[in-house]
């Protein structure tokens, strides 16, 4: 059923929409427009003269190996973080849904990481895994692993990934738990009578019914990895070592802020924006077609 509200006054709907539109224009369309404009400019090193160069910034970007490296890092990082945080969250939600004793405490504890700001999460993990001071860092080294996220790019990537996954599990967990609890119990019972064991019930009934939730979370998680992990990367590795944890969004920052190359930075952010818009559109089309019951 479609809900429709009929407004008696012609202007009322626009008045009601205005605050939302204003926020979107001021905080999204305006800066986005600025970025597009900036990406066509080249500034000299002292910021005195600017020149309009059309696609020059983009051209140099696509001939820069560092940019391809950031693209690769982003692809790997988003895949690993999304897959891990969704899987862990699903496992935890399935366990919580069994409503064991103390489930309330369990749920509350699982939700806490979500309240931690990304930068703080980064500091926390760095604190634990600092090679010479951190509890786990020392343990790893004592156990014979040559653990050093400052120097080893694999270690750095693992640490950033772990922090990002840890932070995102809460959100995914909440949605999966709500999804699980909205599946009528009688469906599971019917399947049990129909001869399906617990594993088969999960894969043939529960999982398909969770797929709308999973697809929604997939979009949200990818956007999270693209943008919100900035705080974690900035506090833990600053994109290093040797660009091993420089994602696209971190590169936008380091080129623009640290490198002072506003034109390139703007071009990067425009591309990033296009990638995310593309991914989101793709997923929403997929959701509309495939996963409604």
């Amino acid at each position: 059923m479609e809900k429709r509200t009929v407004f008696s006054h012609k202007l009322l709907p626009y008045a009601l929409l205005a605050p939302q539109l204003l926020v979107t224009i001021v905080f999204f369309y305006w800066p986005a427009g600025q970025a597009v404009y900036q990406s066509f400019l080249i500034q000299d090193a002292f910021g005195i003269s600017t020149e309009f160069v059309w696609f020059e910034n983009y051209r140099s970007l696509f001939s820069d190996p560092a940019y391809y490296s950031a693209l690769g890092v982003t692809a790997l990082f988003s895949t690993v973080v999304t897959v891990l945080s969704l899987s862990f969250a699903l496992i935890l939600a399935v366990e919580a849904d069994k409503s064991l004793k103390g489930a309330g405490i369990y749920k509350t504890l699982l939700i806490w990481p979500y309240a931690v700001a990304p930068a703080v999460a980064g500091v926390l993990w760095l604190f634990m895994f600092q090679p010479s001071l951190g509890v786990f860092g020392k343990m790893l080294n004592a156990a014979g692993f040559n653990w050093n996220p400052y120097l080893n790019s694999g270690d750095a990537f693992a640490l950033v990934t772990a922090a990002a996954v840890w932070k995102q599990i809460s959100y995914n967990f909440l949605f999966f738990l709500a999804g699980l609890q909205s599946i009528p119990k009688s469906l599971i019972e019917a399947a049990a009578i129909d001869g399906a064991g617990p594993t088969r019930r999960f894969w043939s009934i529960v999982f398909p019914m969770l797929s709308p939730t999973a697809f929604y979370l997939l979009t949200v998680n990818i956007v999270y990895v693209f943008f919100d992990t900035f705080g974690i990367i900035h506090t833990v590795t600053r994109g290093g070592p040797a660009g091993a944890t420089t994602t696209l969004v971190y590169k936008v920052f380091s080129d623009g802020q640290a490198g002072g190359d506003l034109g390139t930075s703007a071009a990067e952010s425009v591309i990033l924006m296009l990638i995310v818009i593309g991914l989101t559109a793709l997923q929403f089309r997929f959701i509309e077609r495939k996963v409604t019951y």
Partner: protein
Amino acid sequence: MADVVLNLVGKLYAGNIRAVSDVSFAVPDGGFCVLVGPSGCGKSTLLRMIAGLETVTDGEISIAGRVVNRIEPMHRDIAMVFQNYALYPHMSVYDNMAYGLRNRKTPEAEIAARVAEAARILELEPYLKRRPKQLSGGQRQRVAMGRAIVRKPQVFLFDEPLSNLDAKLRGQMRVEIKTLQRQLGVTSVYVTHDQLEAMTLADMLVVMNRGRIEQIGEPLYLYENPATIFVAEFIGAPPMNMIGLDPAVGIPAGLSGAESLPVPPTGAMLGIRPEHLHLDRGDGERGSRLRLELKIDAIEAVGAETYFYGHLGSTGPRLVVREAGRGVVPTDGARAFLADRAHIHLFDKASGRRIEM
């Protein structure tokens, strides 16, 4: 070839909630047993224990001679139709029906044959490719039935399968379920709180109240010989008229011929069904019949029969009379009705049990 036998079955839910106590009955092979009773009396709990969806905390349940207390639902060889149908929303009608067979590794060719057969019986052929969401309530109900019959189980369990349908469809499906059960000869246990459904479907009626059995028997036997006040009032619509008789107070005003009834010192309830009261036209012998004078409040003529609503002796208990045909009585009139001795019921007020006369 499966009978269902319950021996002193009880259920205590977590938190010390007693839902069912001391239930014993046996449904013979191919029998249609209906559990009926008011909301919360433990019918669903009992059915779910037979299905294996709830643990049995007391007593024993056996299906086809095998105690199933500790056997998983999937190994009990039963099929259940749920009140909300519990169809798998992401599967087509065909897949819904095939699911149980696939789980049991039935060859696809046989699955196709069985589903086709069930679809034919239930007139579901045009809908096999649809999702449950794209069906009407009645069609969903049929799919739920189909899912039960394709498996050819030993026992069918139904938990209020018709309560989500409108009155007309409910009547129609009731007949279909009965016919289907007869054809297939599968032992069935059916839960409802609708006494009409209970009366029409059952070979064997189990009336429950507060987790206990009030009476077991054939529907018409229970109708004619209710063992307790509860059964008397629960079965039959409109319900049996009840008149309190208290020796300390004496015979209520408006009632005559009741002097010789064996009323215990603690009092009794006199029960007369609405159709067993007949207008006293003042032409026949009253004989040993009871005579009741009613102050009529309202008359409903519905064509084939007429209902009189009134109070015994103008201020006594409210009574209903059902006369065949069209009685012509002015409203507000006082009228006398007669009841045969053979058709009256007497219950002990203290225990609620029937007093044989």
